[in-house]
């Protein structure tokens, strides 16, 4: 298994300011790079998103047809995390980003959701919601 991990703006040696738009644009670039440069087929690509990385992973999977999608400690949206952390009113202080719950029904790839039940930062209920919403559009399939 070849592994390629992209950096986010502002992380490591990548200069810049992180934002949802930049991260998703970079994810698209990396995905196309693998397809074009490595001559990889879409079904040979597995997307793995961890925590905030589940945002670009779900985004890509909802717009393309990768071989599989793996989500680790994923969330429904950033605002939902804020809702859990700082309350119902406080959630509106934060701009909503990475709307995974909205994107996941359009994912056609087989999906594996992994989440720790004792996760204190992102509740495992996020993963359950994602998993449930995934089957909204896949109820007839056996995946």
């Amino acid at each position, binding site marked *: 298994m070849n592994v*390629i991990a992209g950096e986010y703006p502002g992380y490591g040696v990548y200069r810049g300011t992180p934002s949802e738009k930049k991260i998703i644009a970079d994810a698209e670039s990396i995905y196309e790079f693998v397809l074009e440069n490595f001559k990889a087929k879409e079904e040979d*690509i597995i*997307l793995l998103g961890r925590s905030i990385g589940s945002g670009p992973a779900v985004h890509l999977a909802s717009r393309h047809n990768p071989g599989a999608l793996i989500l680790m400690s994923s969330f429904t949206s950033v605002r939902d995390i804020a809702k859990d952390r700082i309350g119902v009113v406080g959630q509106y202080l934060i701009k909503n980003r990475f709307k995974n719950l909205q994107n996941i029904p359009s994912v056609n790839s087989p999906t594996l959701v992994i989440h720790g039940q004792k996760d204190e930062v992102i509740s495992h209920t996020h993963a359950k919601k994602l998993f449930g919403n995934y089957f909204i559009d896949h109820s007839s399939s056996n995946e």
Partner: protein
Amino acid sequence: MNFNSFVFSAPQSSYDKETFQEELIWVPRKKKMASEPQNVKVRAASQDKAIIKRSSVRKFSRVYKISHEDANIVDTQEISTRIQACMQSLEFTEKEQREEFDLHDISFSKPSPYSRGASPKANSGKCLDVQAVQTKLIEEDLNSKDICVSGLNPIKKHHHSLENVKGCPELKTKKTSKSIGCFSFLGRRKSTKGISAENDQSRNSSRLLKRSSITEMSISTSKRSHFAETITYIRATQTGGTQNNYGAEAVQQGGIPCLFLKNKPPTAKYLIYFHANSEDICLAYDLLDHLKQKLKVLRKSLTLKL
């Protein structure tokens, strides 16, 4: 409010460019991002949530695009001068000077070995696409004062040309300006005294001449510009770093740093990892290396035929 530092709490950088000298690649950034849901459409709304359904499969454009700023590095005047000098040295036989030729003279260039299936790393780690390789051949030929000029047309044209000629018998007797662009033919040259007939024959079979390409290149500004861009890219990649480092200086400046762990034996399977907000690609290295070793998804149909 954004609260960027709260959402994207980037840790201190745990590495530098030298840490992953062999495994850090620079992915060129796409100039235009695909518009929000480009290939999806809202089908219905249920429980206050939009259900999105795929409507079409996206087609991808080329990854590498050389910016016009980069193209300015190359002296296009120098290239065009050298090409014109090359054209003047061409000598055609009487048959070629006539505007007729036989179908037997028509030959189709073989696709470049870099065109499909070959890893870019196979080419000494330099990331060259088809046009880049072909154009590099042009440059080499120009440098060696040889008369061969080939490869300005993309490989696709050769495939199309084969079909065109099969379906167009009239090309056998008459050559039109349109038909020139469809195929290439062997460029014959007068044998010199120092070259044996055998060498001449092998040279004719291996080297192809495209009149149309030469004409277009010497006239069309857009073609010349594209040629210059491609040359720029070749030079940029040749000045690049290590074997695994795809980025040249020009690519690095606008590229995305990525950790690339290549499996041995080679496999066609790729895992694209998006890390958490409390780590970077160096902190995720152990996890990724573990995944690389443990995830055995090799299948016979998935292995690369090398």
